């Protein structure tokens, strides 16, 4: 049990911090620009493919730097020449623009790299068990992912709270007009935040593409979870995104290891009923099988009972 608990906590942290890397950019972009960027997970996918390709050419470590930079530049260009142009037609147009962009990126990836998953292995220098506890090994690569994510979290926190550009970003979250009236170039700040958020998604792609899988469906797989994170955390709240990332990762990770069903639960409290048909089938479903739907269930409940999320300020 201790082994299960310890490794579930560590794996939750790894997955949670990966989710945070994605959701932090998305929630910052939403707060500042009011744009729900449906293409955000596509930047994650681009990060993974660029990481894969650059790793083939010059190795993993340069790829870890170059791929996110490339994705960041693409993100900034999308904001400057796409979203900013569409902005005058309102948020629906912006949203449709990002949906279209997500399809374009996915099809572009299909055209260039094909529909099959890439062979994107763990770099040799990190491909060994870091420690073995009881009978389970914890890989060095997972610890590396965790350290990178924590470093990015600390870096992001320092930039937002200790630097002038961070103060400008924080101020523009509530009153962008007020910030520009003080002489700060808010459109430029928006572009930097969009580019920065995309670059963070790119980092998540480079390291997550190895950890999970690098394939054209990877954006569609992770994208909805990232939206769940920002809704549960509270739209626009960075702290909320952090808490929700860890929480949802924990829910998913712990659920996977729990082989209990409703029938077992009732038996535990002494209820042994005889049911048949659909009810019997429902009673037999194990918690481990419900893992993928739990985050969405959590989001639905959150929207019903606390629509502003865990730490959000908006009601809608």
């Amino acid at each position: 049990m201790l082994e299960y608990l310890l490794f579930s906590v560590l794996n939750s942290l790894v997955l949670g911090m990966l989710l945070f890397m994605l959701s932090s950019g998305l929630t910052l972009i939403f707060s500042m620009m009011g744009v729900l960027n449906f293409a955000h997970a596509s930047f994650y996918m681009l990060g993974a493919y660029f990481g894969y390709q650059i790793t083939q050419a010059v190795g993993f470590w340069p790829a870890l730097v170059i791929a996110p930079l490339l994705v960041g530049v693409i993100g900034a260009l999308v904001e400057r020449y796409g979203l900013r142009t569409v902005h005058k037609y309102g948020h629906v147009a912006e949203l449709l623009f990002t949906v279209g962009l997500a399809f374009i990126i996915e099809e572009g990836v299909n055209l260039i790299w094909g529909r099959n998953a890439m062979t994107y292995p763990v770099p040799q220098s990190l491909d060994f068990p870091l420690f073995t506890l009881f009978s389970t090994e914890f890989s060095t690569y997972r610890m590396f992912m965790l350290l990178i994510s924590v470093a990015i979290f600390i870096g992001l926190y320092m930039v937002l709270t200790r630097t002038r550009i961070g103060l400008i970003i924080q101020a523009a979250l509530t009153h962008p007009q007020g910030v520009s009236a003080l002489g700060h170039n808010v459109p430029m700040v928006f572009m930097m935040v969009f580019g920065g958020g995309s670059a963070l998604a790119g980092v998540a792609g480079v390291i997550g593409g190895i950890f999970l899988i690098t394939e054209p469906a990877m954006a569609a797989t992770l994208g909805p979870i990232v939206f769940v994170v920002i809704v549960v955390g509270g739209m626009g709240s960075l702290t909320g995104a952090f808490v929700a990332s860890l929480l949802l990762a924990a829910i998913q990770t712990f659920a996977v290891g729990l082989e209990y069903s409703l029938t077992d639960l009732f038996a535990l409290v002494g209820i042994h009923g005889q049911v048949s048909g659909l009810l019997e089938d429902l009673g037999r479903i194990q918690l481990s099988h419900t893992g993928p739907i739990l985050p969405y269930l959590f989001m639905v409940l959150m929207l019903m009972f606390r629509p502003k999320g865990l730490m959000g300020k908006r009601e809608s």
Partner: protein
Amino acid sequence: MLEIKDLHAYYGRSHILQGVNLNVKEGEIVSLLGRNGVGRSTTCMTIMGLVQPHGSILYKGQQIAGRKPHDIARKGIGFVPEDRWIFPGLTVLQNLQLGMKSSKQSGRWRIEDVFSIFPRLGERSNVHGGLISGGEKQMLTICRTLMGDPDFIMIDEPTEGLAPMMVEQVGRLIEEIARRGISVLLVEQKLSIALKISQRLYIMGHGHIVYEGTPADIKKDQAVRKEWLEV
């Protein structure tokens, strides 16, 4: 310093400013009066580039109509909005620091100046902007704009919702601003403060200027006061 000719502005299809003409000279305090909804705040927002202008806005002889707000601010125009736009997640000190156009800026106003004029802001320098009182917010928003060292400042309804003692303090601050050589366009509903500190006054009605004069002129003209100002 500022010369506006035939300025028009729209919110959607609503024609808000319908040919505004006004000017402010160097070192002058000019008040813009009028009832709610006549376009006084829109005039400031349009000068600042926050609303699309149609017409001519000359500042120090340069056309600024159509420029971006940050560009206009960098030319030396400051704007204190009616809504104050205090950044709630930043402290009082950080709000003031953001008023500076760069971290190394040195101008007519320093943070120490602000804290000596308003000791209360100094005492609350580490409190978040969202947690200070309405009067403190008003002081903070004016001082934050001053930190950008403007040569011309527009102050929209600075005394709205303030206690009489605070109104006096705001009046003294505006006079101090003018003493330091900054031109002021004061948007007010309270005639008393405008009469006391302004050199000239404009009255707006139906989206354009309907009266121009000195405080002495307007004191004498009861008909104008009744038609355009009294509620």
